[in-house]
């Protein structure tokens, strides 16, 4: 028993020691330096950008939001491509506007998931306030809202905010909407089917939005970050010819791409040469901020480990 225990212990120790010696040498998943090719790698999660579901999630909406009623007159708010919900949320505060456009509250019963965040009624207000500030003609929005009175119900609530961006000129043109206008062709083409919850291209599904895994940076996004740093790195002359110094720093970034902090992680080399190389690395990181990275992937690049390795530099 005792002998077996000893043998067992020794053999275990040898195996573990062997693993410790050999396994840590395995390379990490570092990105090899490659020249950027004009090829964009599209990951599958971009295509199937769905939120992860939870089985116990309350059923919110399984089908599309209210469908557009086939109406001859196009809904006025629907005609301004480009506006989005976020803008509407910020400015939908004016009381008057709420009075001006009571009709637009109709969609609420549709039970959309959004209404809580962006109540439909206030969404109509922006046009009034915006225009009022800019022009001496605050009225126009109201008549417009009334004119298509039968139509509002047909409008997807989430699209409502768009009217604010309309120009005075566009409103004046509106009475002629029955006649074909080539300039508005794009608006017809751009019209998309109403979708359920979420914004952008996300599809409606069960579950919390936060459950979605963040998409990793694409190879070309990483390459862009790398080349941005390389442009600012001025390796000191003493480390340019294959000196055995490498600097590893962890760079923490704000969402606007500016540097929050630079922490030393590890390094190779000591003494003056190391200090000089480390200073040049920090200068490079600071000088090239802000970094242009997709904010949607902030979680991915909030912290970046950067290795400045001059060992392969040629003078």
């Amino acid at each position, binding site marked *: 028993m005792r002998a077996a225990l000893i043998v067992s212990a020794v053999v275990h120790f040898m195996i573990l020691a062997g693993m*410790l010696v050999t396994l840590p040498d395995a390379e990490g998943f570092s990105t090899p330096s490659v020249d950027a090719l004009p090829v964009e790698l599209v990951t599958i999660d971009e295509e199937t950008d769905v939120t992860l579901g939870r089985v116990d999630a309350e059923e919110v909406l399984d089908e599309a939001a209210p469908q557009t009623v086939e109406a001859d007159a196009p809904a006025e708010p629907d005609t301004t491509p480009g506006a989005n919900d976020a803008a509407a949320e910020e400015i939908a505060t004016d009381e008057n506007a709420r009075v001006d456009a009571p009709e637009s509250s109709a969609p609420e019963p549709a039970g959309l998931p959004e209404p809580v965040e962006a109540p439909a009624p206030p969404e109509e207000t922006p046009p009034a306030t915006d225009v009022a500030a800019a022009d001496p003609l605050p009225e126009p929005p109201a008549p417009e809202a009334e004119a298509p009175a039968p139509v509002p119900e047909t409008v997807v609530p989430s699209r409502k905010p768009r009217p604010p961006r309309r120009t005075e000129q566009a409103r004046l043109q509106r009475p002629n909407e029955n006649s074909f206008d080539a300039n508005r062709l794009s608006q017809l083409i751009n019209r998309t089917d109403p979708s359920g919850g979420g914004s952008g291209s996300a599809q409606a599904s069960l579950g919390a939005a936060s459950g979605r895994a963040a998409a990793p940076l694409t190879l070309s996004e990483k390459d862009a970050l790398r080349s941005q740093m390389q*442009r600012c790195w001025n390796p*000191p002359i*003493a480390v340019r010819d294959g000196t055995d110094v490498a600097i590893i720093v962890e760079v923490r970034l704000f969402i606007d791409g500016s540097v929050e902090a630079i922490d030393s992680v590890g390094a190779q080399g000591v003494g003056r040469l190391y200090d*000089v190389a480390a200073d040049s690395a920090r*200068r490079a990181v600071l000088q090239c901020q802000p970094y242009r990275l997709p904010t949607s992937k902030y979680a991915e690049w909030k912290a*970046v*480990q950067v290795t400045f390795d001059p060992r392969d530099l040629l003078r």
Partner: protein
Amino acid sequence: MMRIFQRLSIVLALLALAVTPARALLSIDITEGTVRAIPIAIPHFAGTGADAALGQQIAEVVEADLGSTGLLQPVNRAAFIAPVMGTADVPRFAEWRAIGADAVVTGQLVREGGNTLKVEFRLWDAVQERQLVGRQFSTTPQNWRRVAHIVADAIYESLTGEEGYFDTRVVFVAESGPKNRRVKRLAVMDQDGANLKYLTDGSSLVLTPRFSPAGQTVTYMSYEGAQPQVFLLDVETGRRQILGNFNNMSFAPRFSPDGRRVVLSLQEGGNANLFEMDLGSKSLRRLTQTGAIDTAPSYSPDGQQIVFESDRGGTQQLYVMNAAGGEATRISFGEGRYSTPVWSPRGDLIAFTKQAAGRFSIGVMSPDGSGERLLTTGRHNEGPTWAPNGRVLAFFRETGGASGGPQIYTVDITGRNERRVITTTLASDPAWSPRRD
């Protein structure tokens, strides 16, 4: 037993944890950079009364030193927000960055008693917004140039990682008079050409001066007396002595890295061989014995090997041998003739003069003869000498024409940043001093 086993397990588990990466972090490898001169702003040093002018002069010498390297780029003073800055002022970094400065130097002069001047300076990193170096020196006001060079050395070191070489001197042969009656005098100057001082009176021809590793003594060849001989000269005191009483001509002397020996050529009939003289015992030891001309010996920095030129193979080529003598290995195999080899103080390169197709080049190669690179080529370039950091070479270039003559130039080992050292006389055969302590 059981307890030992448990402890072992715990230790192993901890070790395993220690080597396991904590998390997958986005990681980027930067293996390329953009090499450019570092822009640096050097406002005048602050000082009161007469010292204000001195503060300006010191800042300008620092600026000239750093600008001459090609690795740092002084920012034009006209753009400065604060033309004078003392060490008590913390620079407003954003303003300096706005005019393109990555680094800022502030300094001030404080008078301590009648003839003692305290010079303080700080080097600031305008990007990281912190101080990189801060030092002070006490000196006499007459010594301000040297202080400026020391300040420049400290700045150069903390921005490039290389050892500074501004607080050094160059001994050379100053030439004057018409071409057919040139007067050649031994002279010494600061590396930037200032503080010229003649060491000999010009009554006899002098050649090949070389500094001792301590920087105090110069060995050179002089044509005085019956035949040319090698002398030792103390630069500070002017005391001079002949190296040894040889029956034949002695030439091409050079100190060993420890300063205790001198290697030189002695004429033997139509040939010349290498000898080593111990300065303490004055004993002479033969290193080569060939029917050829072996000359221009130079030690490796560790003192273990000697590189020299020899025509034993038919033409002048470079050879390396053990410092104790013995078999020599040829290292130069290119077209043309190679001469005046000098081993770099870093040990990684040997500089030489190469003559091919009627043109003279200054080049470098590895001690094994590989990686030959020519740094400059022209009608006549000759006699390289290393700056103490092994990054820069000085040599002389002969210009043609009636009024032409030799001038000293510097070039860095990449072949870039060639500059003429401004001297008041024609100058040849430079030898760079070691760094002063």
